[in-house]
């Protein structure tokens, strides 16, 4: 009786379990199939065969939910994605929606169709979706044809993020891409050295500001289309197929073995056991130079260096703007309290983070803005700058706690040269416009672009040009650079602060007692902006003649090309 009872209970139990499992299986299978129900014949039969139930199964496995976004009418988007932020995984997924999406001709649907076909049909099993995703992202960013936007895999991202702490991997060089229209009409994207960081192998090997890197370890840096360059030569060879084919083969080889710009930058930024052999073109030097650089040891760059010069003048040099720069700068200033004057050396400072620059500016004058950034925006105030609808955002550091204002008594001079770029250019302009600092040196580099690093959930990231900065007095200086009041033929480098013309000039100015008060400038003049924008030559002469007080922006002789 007992056993029978137990058996009876077992049976009930078993049936219950069976029912639950059946329902579970049904639910599970149904869930899968809902996303997979693609059997409705498409207008191309081969596609119908290809995007079948199996392929559909991939769709649900890697995508959480359908998001109705304005850009993708019915895109499948991950709720954890940084910018989609729509539907969570518990929102209802209609099979019809998915079906409509996957059968549609929208761009996102086309992308997913190709992805599923590759997974399904490619002759070798594709195990890594990471490879596919990164290939897609990198190519999309490259298509923007913006040399300063690039995709980074996890290692590159880590390396770039470490730069905020002053740790530079690879050869320790800051590069940016210049776009130059060549005389033959070809758009050349030159991988240009902004600065070699102090102590880095780039500096030891003698890589200099303005050097153009044309080859890395034998791989040509793909800066322009070789076929466009050789088009005329090739046309001449058309009647001679043998030579023509040989020429085309050579160009193809050059191209297929070359490094795209993003790959070239990554090669410089990442530590590697093998040394890098660079071929660089140095403006003014006829023959290209071959440099051999050690890329195995990262270099820790000291953001701020300071000491008191022999005659009692305070000296502060900023190598790169990192997380600690603002604090280091302030502590340097307090140590130099009582100096007769201050020399702020921004030579060979390629920039770095923007917020420390804002922070430093605030310690001098907490009431004003650092400058402006022009963003692409479909909202807010729209100004048309270079054809892009933009929103102007004042550059103030709203989030940081209020900083103690510095009360540095005495004249301030700022040293700049061709390697002074980005945040350093902004800070020099601010100190001139607001504090009346004297600017000494040569034309600055002219990098006003602002990049934002957008992380992706798998650890990779992409840097995107999201704006262009203007100085506090609304001067645009991208590609043109800023011109100092006191131009020197050879402004020297930050690496050798004790004996150079720039320091001597700065000491002279400080000694002359040109106080900040005396040099105070009428800031923000729309007049100057207009002049600067429209007629640089006129600006130059009129400003020179008027007073050597205006911080001009001028076309740096070696630089040409379009905006950003």
């Amino acid at each position, binding site marked *: 009786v007992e056993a029978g009872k137990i058996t009876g209970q077992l049976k009930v139990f078993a049936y219950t379990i069976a029912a639950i499992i059946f329902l579970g299986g049904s639910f599970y299978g149904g869930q899968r199939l809902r996303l997979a129900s693609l059997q409705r014949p498409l207008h191309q039969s081969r596609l119908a065969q290809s995007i079948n139930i199996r392929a559909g199964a991939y769709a*649900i496995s890697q995508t959480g939910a359908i998001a109705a976004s304005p850009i993708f009418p019915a895109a499948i988007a991950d709720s954890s994605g940084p910018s989609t932020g729509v539907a969570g995984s518990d929102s209802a997924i209609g099979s019809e929606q998915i079906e409509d999406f996957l059968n549609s001709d929208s761009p996102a649907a086309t992308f997913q169709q190709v992805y599923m076909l590759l997974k399904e049909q490619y002759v070798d099993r594709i195990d890594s979706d990471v490879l596919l995703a990164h290939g897609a992202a990198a190519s999309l960013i490259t298509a923007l044809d913006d040399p300063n936007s690039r995709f980074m895999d996890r290692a590159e991202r880590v390396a770039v993020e470490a730069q905020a702490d002053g740790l530079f991997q690879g050869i320790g060089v800051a590069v940016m891409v210049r776009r130059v229209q060549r005389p033959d009409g070809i758009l050349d994207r030159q991988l240009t050295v902004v600065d070699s960081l102090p102590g880095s192998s780039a500096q030891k090997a003698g890589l200099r500001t303005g050097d153009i890197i044309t080859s890395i370890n034998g791989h040509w840096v793909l800066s322009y289309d070789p076929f466009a360059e050789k088009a005329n030569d090739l046309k001449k060879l058309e009647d001679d197929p043998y030579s023509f084919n040989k020429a085309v083969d050579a160009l193809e080889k050059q191209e297929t073995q070359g490094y795209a710009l993003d790959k070239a930058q990554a090669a410089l930024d990442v530590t590697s056991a093998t040394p890098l052999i660079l071929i660089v073109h140095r403006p003014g030097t006829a023959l290209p130079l071959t440099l051999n650089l050690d890329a195995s040891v990262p270099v820790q760059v000291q953001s701020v260096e300071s000491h008191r010069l022999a005659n009692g003048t305070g000296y502060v040099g900023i190598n790169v703007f990192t997380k600690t720069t603002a604090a280091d700068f302030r502590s340097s200033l307090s140590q130099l309290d009582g100096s007769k004057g201050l020399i702020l050396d921004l030579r060979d400072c390629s920039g770095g983070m923007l917020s420390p620059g804002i922070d430093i500016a605030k310690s001098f004058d907490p009431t004003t803005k650092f400058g402006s950034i022009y963003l692409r925006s479909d909202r807010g105030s729209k100004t048309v700058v270079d054809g892009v609808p933009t929103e102007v955002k004042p550059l103030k550091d709203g989030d940081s706690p209020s900083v103690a204002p510095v009360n540095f008594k005495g004249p301030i001079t700022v040293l700049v040269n061709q390697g002074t770029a980005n945040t350093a250019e902004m800070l020099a302009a601010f100190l001139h416009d607001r504090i009346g600092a004297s600017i000494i040196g040569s034309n600055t580099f002219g990098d006003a672009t602002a990049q934002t690093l957008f992380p992706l959930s798998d650890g990779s990231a992409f840097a995107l040009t999201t704006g262009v900065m203007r100085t506090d007095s609304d001067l645009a200086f991208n590609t043109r650079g800023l011109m100092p009041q006191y131009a020197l033929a050879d402004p020297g480098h930050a690496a050798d602060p004790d004996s150079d013309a720039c320091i001597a000039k700065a000491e002279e100015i400080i000694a002359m007692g040109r106080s900040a008060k005396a040099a105070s400038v009428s800031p923000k003049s729309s007049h100057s902006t207009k002049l600067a924008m429209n007629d640089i030559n006129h600006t130059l002469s009129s400003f020179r003649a008027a007073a050597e007080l205006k911080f001009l922006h001028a076309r740096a002789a070696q630089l040409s090309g379009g905006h950003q």
Partner: protein
Amino acid sequence: MNRPSKTIQSKSHVATIFGQGVVFLVLMAVVFIGGFSYTDIQYGVRHPEYLSLTLQQIPERLRLSLHDVAVADSDTQSSPLDVYASVLETVQSEFYGSLPSVPKTDSSPAIDSDHFLTYSAIRGMMGSLGDRYTRFLDPRDYSDMEDDEQGQFVGIGAQLDENKKNQIYIVKPLPNSPAIKAHVMAGDIILKVDDKAVLGMDITRVVSMIRGNPHTPVTLTVARQGAANPIKIQIIRDFVHQEVVVWKMIDTQHKIGYIALFQFNEESDPQIDHALTELQKQGMKALVFDLRGNPGGLLNVAQDVASRFVDNGPIVWEKERGGELHSLDVEIKQHNHPHYPVAVLVNGGSASAAEITSGAIKDDKAGVLIGETTFGKGLVQTVIPLPDHSAVAITTAHYYTPLKHDINHIGILPDIPVSLTADDEKNINQYAQSHPDDTVDLMYDSQLKKAVSNLVSRQAAGEHPEGWD
């Protein structure tokens, strides 16, 4: 007494419970799979045409679903779609700069920035596989490719070129073309297309202006030597067949015919059939089949063409991922001409379908391969159209010659290697320029000369055309 029996009883009870347990588990599994595929089967019942497909998919779906669970547990990757969507949306809202797009041209519609960026992303995704044959074809690429595969397009059927003064001129009107019917002549310089001056324009632009819909008129204004004034010619556009074959009786003494095939498309086999018929009428006894520089084309056309030379058996073996080898065999219906002694010319430019054809002829000993090692492309692509009129070409299979040789990156070695030197190529090129109407070059083309001498000696040894088994 009780004990043993009880023991036995309890043993049997254990066995029963154990047995029931097994049955239970099996049932549960069946129930789970039943539940899992309930919707599939339901769907299959409603759509009988998909029932067998649906049932076949069940094991694979189960496997994938379980695999997904495993993958999800160690989740570190996001799907390519997620990454693409994030990047695209960020770019659209944040990028400072104009988004790239392609403006409309005469021959192709505009590509907006959404599509431009998406197509770039797709190209990048496909490019990451490192297989140059797996590629994306945007709507324009795809329509060009379709024209190429069909071997016909809509136009006037005249070959155009640009002369040294950058004028576009008619090289020659094709036989039976609308151009020849409208009395367009070789050497005519095109001044205007539909009253729009074209001097100085790029040749591809002029071609796209001349092309259009079938049975629509296009008016050319041409300058003709000897004519005082420009001549206006109205031509009705129509389907034009691409010439993919040239043929000639090159040795009238030994009755050696010559057929060169430039490409494997829908026009190839009919044109070879025609050439064989014409050469047969002239009493052909042996054939030179020239596949040099032939980049390939459609697989089924290679099967058709090779079947003309091979007796029976497989033409090629195909193998998809995880699949078995399966063969494409000789099509007997292609044996509508005698079986001629054949010399096949190949070189490094003979690829893909040309290698399938020459590989089948070599392995079957149906002919002698003369020339240089072939390109070495042992992969098959499937072109799959997408709803937005673009398409993808995906490498879906490896192929092997009838003797199951993998030729990928290796190529096919000719039976009789004959290489052309740089001097040979220069001479051949010069000869071609000074003799533009000659189909073949028996002066400097040492590969062709070797083929002829090979066929002559085989003829002397008693090899003659014969019927098929």
